[in-house]
Every structure is written in C-alpha cells, then in structure tokens.
C-alpha cells in the first residue's frame, strides 16, 4: 500500500480553491482600501467622543440657561467656551446634545440591527431549507410586512404611547426583518444544494444541526458585513422618528428633536439645525463607507477575485 505513509505537504493555494477562509479574505481585501482605514478612524474617534466627551466638556446637555441661548459655534463671531458648537434656543450645549443623541442613536441602531439580523436570518434559513409550503407562507409573510411602510407602522405603534428606546427598537426590528429573511433565504436555497449539506445529511446530521452548524456559519458572515449599512439606516429612522415626535421623548436629546426644534430658528440661528446634522452625517458617512467597502470586498471575493 502506498498511502499509509503520511504525505502532509500542503499544496500551494490554487485558484480553484475559492472556498478558503472567505470571511478572512473579505476582511483583508476591505482593509486594503485607504477609505476603510480612514472611515474606521473617524468612526472610532466619534465613538470615543460620545463616551468621553460628556466627561471632558464642562457643560450639560439638558440644563437650560437663558443667558447662553443662541450662542454660535466657536468658529463664528460671538462663540465662546465651553460651547464648541454653540447652544440652542434654550441655551443647552449643542456639541454635548449631539454626542448624547449620537450615542443613543447608535445604540438603537446596533441593537435593532442585531435583532433584525437574528430574527430575519433565522426565518430565512428555515424557509429556504425547508422549502415547500413553509417557504411559500413565510415569504408571503415578508411580502405583507414589506408592503406596510415603516413610517405608518411606527406612527401607529409609537404615536399613541410614550415611545421608549425599547419600543423604538421593537418597531425597527418588526419593520426590517423581512429584508434579512429574503436575502438569507435566497442564499440558503443555493447553499442547500451544495454537496457539504448533502454530506452532512448522509452522515446523519439532523436538520436543525445542518441549519445551525453548517449553513449558518457559511452564509451569515457576508450578510453581516452589509448589515453595517443598516446600522446607519436605522440611525436615520431614529432621527426621523424624533423629528415627527415619536422618538425618545425630551429632555433626552435626539437628532430628530434637535433638528425639528432648530427649524423654527433657521434664519437667525441656522447652526442649531445644521451643525448637529453635520455631526450625524459624519458618523453615518463613516459607517456607510465601511459598509460600502465591505460590500465591494465581499462581491469581489465571492466573484472569484483574490
């Protein structure tokens, strides 16, 4: 017999070997973009600011002070410390209010995206794997869900009770899980045809085991990359809710309420609206840029690139 002697030399990675460490390769590819590094730096800076800003700046996000109202940002004439970005109509520090708003929005975005990711993907994998009528029913359910505009759902549910972070997150999850269900179902349909799933079945693995241990680990990472984009989208929804008056209630600052209040003073104190918006856009921009780069890296790798 020739093969009992172990020959363990590892062949050089071949082009055909497109399965290897997909996740790692996507990350490596994404990191090779300058944009990725830049966006990550901006994002981390903002996160640090939201965490430590309130400790460093000698002002309050909620305390009103008539004497300090309508102060412009430092770079404009009339601005003064500690109000780097000026104050609002009630004399509250805009930078601090923005940072607190950002922190809340970010928390809501991350938690809701995790929730919709788990819920949607669980349903999608199940539907795609089971197929048949289970699939038809679950997919029609996503159709139903997707044809109810988020805003209607949000106002109906949040509009009548006092909205809290928890109910906002619940509404966002309820409104957005179908996207994840559809995507993960689509990939599962293709994945379930693959030989490794057949192999697992032949070995005797149960359906649950196949879904959890085999399909999920190979399809979820690429979907998770794109979920970064959704964190930004959810933060925008949070702002819209605040703007319409169904977000987290005052005095806790949110971007929506800051902007909506600022519109009344647009002509004289434009910064109340514009400045927090720029900060939010910066945060969202860094997230979206990272998400965009990850998405491209994923497409590149999945299409067989190096």
């Amino acid at each position, binding site marked *: 017999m020739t093969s009992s002697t172990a020959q363990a030399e590892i062949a050089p990675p071949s082009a055909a070997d497109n399965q290897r460490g997909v996740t790692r390769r996507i990350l490596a590819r994404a990191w090779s973009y300058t944009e990725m590094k830049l966006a990550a730096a901006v994002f981390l800076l903002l996160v640090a600011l939201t965490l430590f800003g309130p400790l460093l700046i000698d002002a309050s996000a909620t305390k009103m002070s008539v004497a300090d109202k309508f102060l412009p940002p430092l770079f404009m004439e009339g601005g003064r410390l500690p109000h780097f970005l000026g104050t609002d109509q009630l004399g509250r520090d805009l930078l601090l209010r923005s940072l607190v708003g950002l922190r809340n929005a970010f928390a809501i975005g991350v938690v809701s995206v995790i929730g919709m990711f788990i819920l949607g993907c669980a349903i999608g994998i199940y539907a795609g794997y089971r197929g048949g009528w289970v699939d038809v029913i679950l997919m029609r359910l996503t159709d139903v869900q997707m044809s109810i505009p988020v805003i209607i759902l949000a106002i109906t549910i949040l509009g009548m009770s006092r909205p809290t972070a928890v109910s906002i997150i619940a509404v966002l999850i309820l409104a957005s899980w179908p996207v994840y269900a559809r995507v993960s179902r689509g990939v599962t349909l293709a994945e379930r045809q693959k*030989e490794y799933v057949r192999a697992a079945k032949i070995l005797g693995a149960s359906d649950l085991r196949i879904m959890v241990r085999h399909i999920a680990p190979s399809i979820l990472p690429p979907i998770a990359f794109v979920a970064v984009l959704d964190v930004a989208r959810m933060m925008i929804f949070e702002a819209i809710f605040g703007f319409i008056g169904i977000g987290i209630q005052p005095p806790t600052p949110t971007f929506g309420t800051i902007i909506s209040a600022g519109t009344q003073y647009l002509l004289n104190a434009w910064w109340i609206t514009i400045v927090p918006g720029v900060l939010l856009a910066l945060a969202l921009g860094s997230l979206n840029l990272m998400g965009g780069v990850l998405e491209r890296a994923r497409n590149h790798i999945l299409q067989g690139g190096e």
Partner: protein
Amino acid sequence: MAPQSMSKPGSPLMEVRDLSVAMRSESGVRPILNTIDLTVMPRSVLGIIGESGSGKTVLSRALVNWIKPPLAITSGSVRYGGRDLLALPEEEMAALRGREIAYIGANPTSALDPTVPVGHQILEKLRAVAPQLSRQDARKRIIDTLDAVRIPSPAKRFDEYPFQFSGGMMQRALIVDALVSNPKLLIADNITQPLDVTVAAQILRLLRDLQKDFDTAVVFISSALGIVSEIADDMIVLDRGHIVERQPVNALLEKPEHGYTRELIAKVPKIWTGAAEPPAPSAQNVVLDVRDVEKTYEVRDRNAIFAHRKVQAVRGVSFTVRRGENFGIIGESGCGKSTLSRLLSCLEAPNRGQILFEDRDIATLRGKDLLALRRRFQLLLQDPYNAIAAHSSIGRTIAEPLLIHGLVPRREIRKRVSAVMSEVGLSPSLYDQLPVGLSAGQRQRVNIARALVLEPELLILDETLSALDQVEQAKLLDLFETLQARRGITYVYISHDLAMVRRVCARIAVMYLGRVVELSDNETLFASSSHPYTRALLSAVPTVEEKPYKTETYLLEGEPPDPIDIPPGCSFRTRCPFAFDRCAREDPRLTLLSDGSLSACHLEGSGLPAVDIAGLQPVATVAQTRPVAP
C-alpha cells in the same frame, strides 16, 4: 528536439517564436510559458497535449493575443498573415478575432449570453463579421450549418435558449458559431473535456469532417492523449510551460522520444490490452437488494396552464450487491446515476420499489433506526471542494459524524480521528488546520476519512474520483483496496469512467435513460458485451490502444432523448445502429443470456458483430483508427 514535420506543403499560417508568458503577483513573477516555438500549417490539425496546469489554455489564448492581467506576455511573437499579432493595435486584433481566427473554449454552457436564443447570438456575430449578408441569408446559412453539425430540428433550435441545450449541443452550436464565418484558423481549447465520451467522439468526428469541408487549420488542445491522437496530424507535448516534444502523431505514439511523453502514454489507461485481472464477484450474502425502484420528478410546463410534466429519472432499476463486492454503475450523464445514488443513500425516497439493506427496507426507517443505518452505509460525493465546509478545521470536520452519532467519548475523539487520518494518508498534524490550501486529492481524503470514521460496511462512491488526476486516482483506488482487505467493505462505484470501472469492479450495470440495460461481470461486459449501447460506450472510450469495438460500427448519433418524452418500444432505438421493427413496438426486458449476463435487447446478443480481443495492439496508430488523410 525533432524538427517540426512538414506534413503539408506551403507556407505556414501561423508562426510562434520564443513566446513566454508570466504571472505577476505580489509575491513575484512566475513563468507560465517558456520560449514556445510552434508553426501551424494551412489545413492541418496541430494537437497540443499536456496535463492540467501545464499552460495549455494560456497558450491557446496567447495565440489570439487574449492575455489579461495578472498574466503578461514577456517575450516572443505570434506571426499571422505577415503581422505580429502581439504587436497589433487592439482594433486590428479585434478585426481578426472571430473572422480569420476563431476560438472555442472548454466551457460551452456559459459561453453565450444566457438570456438570448442561441441562433440569434450566432446571427449577431455573423452579421458583425459579414455585414453585407442580409438577415434572411444569414439566418438560412446558420440553420444550414446547424443542420450540418447534426443538431436536430435546427430551425426550432435557432430560437431556443442556451440553457435548453445540453453541453454537447452547445459545443456543436459554438462550432457553428466559429466556422460560420469561414475562419482560416480555429483554436479549440479542451472542447471535449466537459462532455461524455460518446458525445466527445461525435464532436471529434464532426470537427474532422468540417475541417476538411471548410479548409480550416485547427489547433486542437486537450489533456487526453486518446482524444488528441484521434484528430491531430502533428503533436506537441507541453510540460510545465515547456514544449518537450514535437512529432507527427503516429511517430509520437510509436516512438516517443522524451521521457515525459513516454510517461504520458503509459498513464493512458488500458482496457483490453494488458489490463490487470479484474476482481472476482463475491459469493457472500446479499447486503444491498434494489428492487424495481422508480423515481419521477415533476417540472412545471411552460406551455400549458397549471400543468406539470414528469421527468422519469429512474425507471425500474433492480440489482443486488453482495458483501465484499465491488459493484459498478455506468452510463452517460443524465441517465439517472446521481438520482439513483440519492435514492440509495436515503436522501430521497423512490416513488415505487424498495431498497433493502440487509433485508430491511430503508425507506421505512425513521429516527434511531435511520441513524443506525447511516452509520453503516455511507456515500462519498463527487466534488472534493464543496463537500467539506471551509469554516471548520480538518479534525473537526472528520469528527463531526462521531459527534452526531455520539459514538466515542469526547476525549477520545482526537485519538480516533488521528488514527483514521493516518489510515487514509493524511498527516495528523493537519488536525487543527483549516482546509485552506489542501489539494483536491487531500480534500477527497478528508472526505473519505469522515466516512470511514463511522466504520461503514457499504460505501457508495458517486463519481468520487472523477475530479482527480490519474495519479491521485490510482493512489485512492489502492487505498480503497487496502481498506476492503482490512475491513471487508462493500463498494458501489457510480461513474462514467469506464477505465476505472474496468479496473476495480467485479460486476457492472450499464444504465440508459433511467434503466439498467445490461448487467454482467467485468470480463463479459468488456470482452463480449451483448448490448449495442454498451458497445457504443466502449467504442467511444479515449484510449490509445486498438479497440475491439470499432468506432465506425457503433458510433452513436445524437444524444439520449429527453427523460420527459421517452420513446415507446426500446428506449435506445432512436440511436441504436441495429434497431429493427420489433424495437419500436416492444420494450425489451432484462433477460438472462447464456454467458450469464443480463441484457435488455431483442437481439439477445446474437446479430452483433463478433469480437476478438486476443490480437489487439497496445498502441493503435492513426492508420488503424481512421482513414488516412489523402
């Protein structure tokens, strides 16, 4: 090195001098082709042979100046019509491609836009290269050429989409596409590789005829010596980017000069001459008893409202396998082999019939019993890349069945897995590594180890070795043999590779359109088959030895009928060279013949040409296999 033979007079059509191609990557420059010199004469066929990875495809692309990053041409010239193609501006090169120089690749099914009918795409190309032709004339010319390559009902096929064409049909359509503009040179890169041997043989013959009719020179590239030698006038042997030998085809087969060529010739499997004694049938008890199983799928019918059509994938298959035996199932793609393997491995249930494993109907097993069955009864799949997941370590992958079945206490798993790994020839040091970078052969070993760790009694191998090269295949066959000796495993090989089945199987079933048409022991089947279909399969095997079944006598026309519309009577009659009137009326049953074989043919073995395998030559020269070109 022998000088390029001048089998045809006249000046060369294409001359390649000192051509080198390299791959540039971050880790440096790797040469792919080194100082290639070759000459293509008008109206001749130049064969290029080499193993996979030797640079054949890169060479074929370099001939049409179609090299893309990270590859780059580093030196040399490709002279055609007095010009160097490599120095030509892109527009002038584009004006040659598809007009004077045509190219066909190995990937027929993805070569055309999937959303546009095949005929329309050929029309688009013909009108691009010959704008003076009117639409009607162009259309007529294409339909005529489709007819000439023996595509049935070409006018209807003209409007059908690529996915409605089988691989063989598509390759014919692409030959039409290439030849319809009357090119001077056709470059064919491995065009028979994805096709069944029967279809490949048809395509070869077709190309040979057309090459004469159209006066085209052909550069024919392939990794199968048996195929190139059927068509080429001169041959070039490529080894790791170097040309190691060039000779006219007969001389190359008879007096190979370079060691590598000799090795290549020796590797072509022998079926009749000098084959080792096939294993004997087993006399032990029956482990697997397949009784008249049937499987039908329903597909939606686009041409009727709420209607379905039935695809009869497996139509009443019966056979038995005895303990310790090697049983083979062969047939063209689409004949129902994979469906049968899914039925056998209990992934799907048959619509009718039974599969008994040690006298228990596996379709009735549930829960614990099914799990117990799975343990003793394993299936190895074809694709070594997709059968193991990329995200778990090798050891974890092999341990998975132990965890599923809870056979071994957790702390002993590593020991068990390591033992199996060394048994199949994987170093246990790979235990914690990811499958990243494992070769196809090593992956297939992981696969095998994963099945073996359960200590199964029956292993079904569905094209398990097809993706591997000859050397690796031989090693794994040895391994299977050893395991059989050690553990008494029973194997069912499902394959389209006749040479492999010849080597390892004691009894063989031949499938056609979802049925077993012949079932005999190895020697009877290969030496004196009693079914016309089996003989046709055997006549098409690409070997270099002389064959007892002459291609001229048995070559099949067309392809198997659609399993949706199976013709009444004998289902093989649409392609059978021996069909007679009874065949259209009556469906032949599988009958026991005097030589002990089972055959489903009204001729019952009589009336087929006599065969004599005693006097066959181990290396057939061209004169023996085809008429010499004038």
